[in-house]
C-alpha cells in the first residue's frame, strides 16, 4: 500500500474544501473498492478524505411516495429498512454480509462498476441522485464504464427512489466474485414500465424494447423473445456476450414473473 494522508471530514463542506485543496485526492465512503485497489498498489491517491463521519448522509427517509437514502447508508441498512422490497432484496444480495455492512450506496454508484447492482436499481426505478450541488436523474447519471456525470469533487449526498407500483430485481451472480454477470430490474413506476440491466454492458442501461412489450402485456412471455443486441456486451472468462444476452432475457422473465 502506498502511503497517503488520511482526513476525516465532519461535514460535506469540509470534505469539499479538503478535496479542492488536496493534491490527487479521493473520497472514501465504504471503501469496498477503493481500499483493495490501494492495497493492490493499483491506486495511489495522496489525500484520502473519509466521509464516514458525516451523519447527515446516513439513513433512510420514507414518505408515502418515495424513499430517500443517504449516500453513506450501507447496503445492509438499505436491505433492512427499504420499504421498496425489490430495492431491499437487491441491497441484500450485494457482495457478502461483511461487504454489505461497510459498502454504501453513494460509493457504489459514484464508482459505477459495470457489474454493480445499484445502477440497475437507480435506472430501473427512475431514481434521482442528489449531490452537494444539484440533482441528476438516474438516466443521466451513469455515462460509461466507471464513469458518471459527477463533476470532479462532487459528492453523492442521497438518492431518492419514487415508490414503484411493482418492482423486482433478479441477478445472475458471477460465481467467483458475486458481482452481477447480469442483473435486471423490472419496475412499473409513475405509470411507466422500466427495465434496467446491469452487468451486461459497460454500464447500466434500459431495455426499451422490453419496456414497450411489457407496457402492453406485463407477462414473462412478453420479454421471452426480445432481441438483445449484444455487440457491445461485456465478455470475460465467465460469460460470453451471447450468454449474457440470453441471461438478460431470462432474468427479465423471472423478474416479471415475480410481480406479474
Amino acid at each position, binding site marked *: 500500500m502506498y*502511503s497517503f494522508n488520511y482526513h476525516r471530514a465532519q461535514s460535506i463542506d469540509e470534505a469539499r474544501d479538503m478535496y479542492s485543496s488536496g493534491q490527487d485526492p479521493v473520497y472514501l465512503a465504504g471503501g469496498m473498492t477503493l481500499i483493495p485497489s490501494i492495497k493492490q*498498489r493499483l491506486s495511489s491517491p495522496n489525500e484520502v478524505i473519509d466521509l464516514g463521519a458525516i451523519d447527515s448522509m446516513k439513513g433512510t427517509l420514507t414518505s408515502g411516495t418515495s424513499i430517500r437514502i443517504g449516500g453513506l447508508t450501507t447496503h445492509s441498512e438499505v436491505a433492512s429498512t427499504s420499504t421498496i422490497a425489490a430495492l431491499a432484496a437487491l441491497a441484500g444480495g450485494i457482495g457478502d454480509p461483511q461487504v454489505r455492512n461497510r459498502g454504501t450506496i453513494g460509493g457504489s454508484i459514484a464508482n459505477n462498476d459495470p457489474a454493480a447492482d445499484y445502477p440497475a436499481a437507480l435506472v430501473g426505478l427512475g431514481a434521482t441522485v442528489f449531490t452537494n450541488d444539484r440533482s441528476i436523474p438516474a438516466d443521466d447519471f451513469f455515462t460509461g464504464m466507471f464513469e458518471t456525470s459527477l463533476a470532479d469533487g462532487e459528492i453523492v449526498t442521497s438518492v431518492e427512489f419514487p415508490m414503484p407500483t411493482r418492482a423486482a430485481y433478479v441477478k445472475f451472480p458471477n*460465481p*467467483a466474485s458475486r458481482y452481477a454477470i447480469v442483473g435486471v430490474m423490472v419496475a412499473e413506476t409513475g405509470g411507466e414500465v422500466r427495465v434496467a440491466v446491469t452487468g451486461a454492458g459497460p454500464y447500466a442501461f434500459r431495455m426499451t424494447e422490453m419496456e414497450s412489450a411489457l407496457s402492453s402485456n406485463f407477462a414473462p412471455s412478453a420479454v421471452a423473445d426480445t432481441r438483445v443486441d449484444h455487440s457491445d456486451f461485456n465478455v*470475460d472468462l*465467465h460469460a*460470453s456476450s451471447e*450468454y449474457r444476452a440470453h*441471461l438478460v432475457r*431470462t432474468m427479465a422473465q423471472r423478474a416479471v414473473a415475480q410481480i406479474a
Partner: protein
Amino acid sequence: MAEHTGIGASVKRKEDARFITGTGRYTDDINLPGQTYCAFVRSPHPRATIRSIDTSQAREMNGVVDVFVGADLAQDEIGDLPCGWLVKSKDGSDMIAPPHPPIATQSVNYVGEPYALVIGETPEAAKSGAEAVSADFELQTAVMDVATATQSEQIHESVPSNRSYDWELGDRDATDAAFEQAAHIAKIDIVNNRLIPNAIEPRAALGSFDPASESYTLYTTSQNPHLERLVLAAFVNVAPEAKLHVISPDVGGGFGSKIFVYAEETAVIWASARVGRPVKWTAERSESFLADAHGRDHVTHAELALSEEGEFLGLRVQTIANMGAYLSTFASSVPTYLYGTLMAGQYKTPAIHVEVQAVFTNTAPVDAYRGAGRPEATYVVERIVETAARELNMDPSELRRRNFIRPDEFPYETPVALTYDTGNYEASLDRALDLAGYSGFAARKAQSEAEGKRRGLGFSCYIEACGLAPSQVALSLGAGVGLFESAEVRVDVTGSVTVMTGAHSHGQGHETTFAQLVSDKLGIPFENVSVVHGDTRRSDYGLGTYGSRSIAVGGSAIATATDKIITKGKKIAAHMLQSEEENVSFDDGIFTIPDSNESLAFGEVAFSAYVPGNFPLDELEPGLSEKAFYDPANFTYPAGTHICEVEIDPQTGCTEIVSFVAVDDFGNVINPMIVEGQVHGGLAQGIGQALLEHGIYDSDGQLVTGSYMDYTMPRADDLPDFTVDTTVTPCTHNPLGVKGCGEAGAIGATAAVMNAMTDALGVKNLAMPANPETVWRAAQGG
C-alpha cells in the same frame, strides 16, 4: 463414566482450543527481533531472456536494506531446486529436468517467476523497492497449449520437444490383443483442468542466521519440515543439515501445495545470512496464485474394450501431462506412479497400457494437489466406464459390479504394478445405492423434467493407492528419498506421554488422533498424551504429510514405538514385581502377573523407570522412551463408491447438487468424526474441480484467474450437505489395519459429479469446470 476416548471414538480435537480462540501460531504470526521483510520481483512475462537487471534505483530507496539477484545466490553456490523423483522414458532414458535456479538468472519461463528480491525495513519498503527493480527482457513466444507443446518452440535448451519424459506402464501387446477381441470399444477424450490449491493461509517463510553457531532457523508453512531441511541442505546447499533447523508451526492447510521446496524459503534463509538479520516473507494471495505449484492439467484419450457381456477386456490410455515451466519437487511422480498405476480401478481389467508424456509449458510448475494423480486416474476410469455403460445401455452400477474384483480374490495383482491387499467393493456400492435412494431416481428425474429441469445421477467407484511409502517400492521406481515415518514415544516421570512424530498436521487433527491411539494402547487418559510435530530438532525425522499417509505410516510408527514402551514396561514391572518378563501381561494401563493379586499401574512403572533405585543396570536401563521407524510392506488401498445427483436449470445452466453420497472403506478408523471431516473437505475440492475451479492462462501467458474475483472457490452455498458412511475391510499389513482418508473425497467426487452432469444433459462429454455457460450451451445443443 469417563468419555470413551480410545480408538474408534469421535473425540473432540485437542488442537481446537487454540484455533477457536485465535491463539494458533502460524508462520506469519511469528516475528523475530530485528526482522526485515522480503519482496520478490516477479516476471510479468511468460517467456523472456533476461538481458540485464537494474537494481540501482531500488537500492537508493528509503527503507531498502539490500537487493539481490539470481547471480548473488549463484555466487554463494546456492543450487537449483531439484525434482526428487526420477522417471524413465519408454526407451530407458532418464527424464530431463531443466535447471531450475531459485531466482531466475538467464531467463524467465512463467509469469510470476522471481528474478530478484528486495529486503526492506518494512513490508511496504520491500514492496516499493521491488517495484523499482526493472529488467531488460527479450520477449519470446510463450508455449501455452499443453496438447501441442511438443511441436512448439523449445523452452529449455536441454529439453528437445519440451518433453521431460515419455513413459509407459503395462503390456502394450496384451492390450492390443484384448482390443482385437472386443465386442465394443468405448472411447473418450478428456481434459483434467488446471487447479490452484488455495490453502487459505498463504505460504510464508521467516529465516534467521545465528553467526555464533553458524546455524540457520527457518519457520515456514511446510507439510514436511524434515524434507524441506534435507532438500535445502543436500541439494540447494544452503547449509549442512545439522545447521538447519526447520520449524513448521501451525499451518493453515496445504493440500499438496506446501509439500514442495520453493524459491521463496530458499531465498529468505540464504538472505538472512547475507543481511545478518532475520528475513520474513509472507505471500500475498496474488503471489500465491502465480507462484504456488498448481495441480492436475492433463489431456487424455482413453479407450476401453469390452466383451459382449460387458466384461472389461483392455484399457488404453494416452495422456499429456503439463509440468509447467520446471519440474517441481515431486512433479514427475504424479502423472506416472500415482496415476498410471491406478488404471485398474476396482476392476479386473486384464490388460492395461498407459502412456504419459510430460511436457513443459510457460506456466507455473504443476505438482501434487490433493489426490495427486489418483483423481486424474479415477476420472479417466470412471468416466470411460460410465460412457461404456451408456453405450451398451446397461445400468452403470451393474456394469461396475460385473467387473469388480471380488472379496475372495485378494490379494489381487493388477496389470499396472500394484497388489491390492483387501477390499469389498460391492459392499460400498450397495450401501451407497441404498443411501442415494437409487431405486427412486427415475421418479425424481421424471418430477424434475415435469418442472423443466434436468436431473442426472453419476457414480464413481474409485480406488487409491495411498499411505505413501513403502520405501523399497518408491526407491526402485525412482524416488530420491525413502518414505517411511518415524516416531518417538516419551513417557514422562509422572506417567504423562509426549509423542514426537514426523507427520506434520495442518488440519488433519494428528494431535488428537495420535493421542487417542497412544492413550488407547497404554490405557492412560487421553489428556495425558501430547503430540509434538513440525520441528526438525524435536522429532527424529519425518517424511511429512501427503498421500494420505499420516495414520497408515506415521500412526503405525507410533503404534510400533508404543509397543516397545509396553515391552520395556513389562521388563520394569517384572523387576518391580520380582517376576519374569514373560509372566507380565499388560492391559488397560495395568501390568499384572496373571493368576496373582499383583499389579502395577502404568504410572507406577513410569515413575520407577526414572527412579531406578535397584535396577539391575546390566539388564535393565533406566528411562522409558522408545523410537520406531516404520516402513510398510505395501501401499494401502482405500476405495469406495460416490454417488452424485444433480439438478440443472437448462434456462440458466445453473447446477444444484441435490445429493452427494460417499461410502468409503478406510479400513479401521481411529476417530470417525475426523475421518468424516476429511471426506467432506475432499468432496468439496472434487466438486470444486468439476463445477467451479479453473486456473486459466490466456494465450499470451497471463494467468487470468489470478484472484478470487475470477478463480471460483467453493463457498458454503455452492455445496450440499453430504451423506457419508464407511464400510470396513482392515488393511492387512499395518499394525492398525488403517488405510488413510485424506484424499478420498477429492479422488472420487469429480467423476461422480461429471457422470451426473452428462447423465442429466444427455451428452457424452462436458468440459470441466461445468460452469453455467458451459452447461447452458450443452443444454441447448444436447
